[in-house]
């Protein structure tokens, strides 16, 4: 690591010194390519975020790719139903590492207003690791922009070496998750215990 004092001293002299880690993360954070993946109402706000008034392009995340092979970020925008959940997991598996997930809206976080439904998945985090969650029904485009900035901060803070290094730099950690199957009443399995860690509330 370079000494901060020395770094600023050198900058005054017109020499910019950085680490490979910072440079690498800086590049990744400012060119997030989201997947065009609209599920429900929130998708319209996601579109609005990339359109004229809100202009997601200012934050380097406007290149919506229709193919999961070209995308880094999956914005789960809307209600994930049980019929859709296996496909969501499969699309996630098809994305190359490094990849991130934003759960946009109450439905993607927990099922939201439709939580009582028999065909509604109670949160996409049962099958996928979620990096940023945006509350709201639907969240405003500004909230999505904020979530992308939060994700950028998260990417910038990632260490490339050591035990805390991200998943894509650790060959031992799986980057794909098992796709649930349609069962007679519910998905099988109904949740992926390797991914899903709900908060324990003491009662």
């Amino acid at each position, binding site marked *: 690591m370079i000494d901060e004092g020395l770094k600023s001293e050198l900058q005054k002299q017109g020499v910019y010194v950085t680490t490979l880690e910072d440079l690498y993360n800086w590049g990744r954070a400012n060119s997030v390519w989201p997947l065009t993946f609209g599920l429900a109402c929130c998708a319209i706000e996601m579109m609005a975020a990339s359109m004229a008034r809100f202009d997601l392009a200012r934050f380097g995340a406007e290149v919506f790719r229709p193919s999961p092979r070209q995308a880094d970020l999956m914005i789960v925008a809307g209600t994930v139903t*049980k019929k859709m959940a296996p496909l969501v997991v499969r699309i996630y598996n098809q994305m190359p590492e490094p990849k991130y997930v934003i759960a946009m809206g109450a439905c993607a976080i927990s099922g939201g207003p439709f939580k*009582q439904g*028999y065909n509604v998945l109670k949160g996409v985090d049962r099958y996928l690791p979620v990096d940023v969650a945006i509350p709201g029904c639907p969240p405003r485009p500004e909230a999505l922009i904020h979530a992308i900035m939060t994700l950028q901060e998260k990417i910038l803070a990632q260490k490339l070496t050591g035990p805390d290094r991200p998943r894509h730099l650790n060959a031992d950690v799986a980057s794909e998750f098992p796709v649930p199957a349609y069962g*007679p009443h519910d998905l099988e399995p*109904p949740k992926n215990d390797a991914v899903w860690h*709900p908060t324990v509330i003491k009662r």
Partner: protein
Amino acid sequence: METLEQIKARLEAALPSAKIEVLANECAAGERSLLVDAASGFTVAKFLRDDAQLKLDYCSNVTGVDWPDKELTEKIKVKQVVDGVEKEVEEVKKNIRPGYLEVVYHLYSMGLKHGPVVLRLRTENRADKTHLPSLTPLWRGAEFQEREVYDLYGVIFYGHPDLRRILMWDEFVGFPMRRDYIAPDDFEYEPTPHDEVLVEAKKHYPAEPKAEVKP
């Protein structure tokens, strides 16, 4: 448009075998409906569509309704001898009205711009005799809606060209819109459970450690 009684009279004249009943509706709008027996459902619907005065060429809405077995209580006065004295005693008699599934069609006329005529068909029961004639050959607009009624209620429409599940996946068992359907239990984690959800969620809570008894 004619009143339902007039339509019923004309239907009975044209189709003597059909059993038709006009059902009352007590709410403010008071749209009454025609209950037709399942066997003559198709011919009645065809008459309604092709009749020159009615010309109900537009089948707007197809709905399933589930009416489970209902317990009806009736109070009957029975004379009984109690302690040597004859008395009138009220006895509660319980009848069970067998349940059925119902399909409701809302018919309008686009040409004559009138309607609706509400047509109802009922199945015999909810378990094994849930067959009804499909009206898709008459109105194609009923195709997906009847599939939906099959998917969610389990009414089997004979004569339907393509009767498959439409909203749920093919492997799904059961009919989720029926009133006795039990949704899969996935309340393992609830941040703010209450009422029924709390009861369900409690089943998943880890057993509370027993308080240590001080010696």
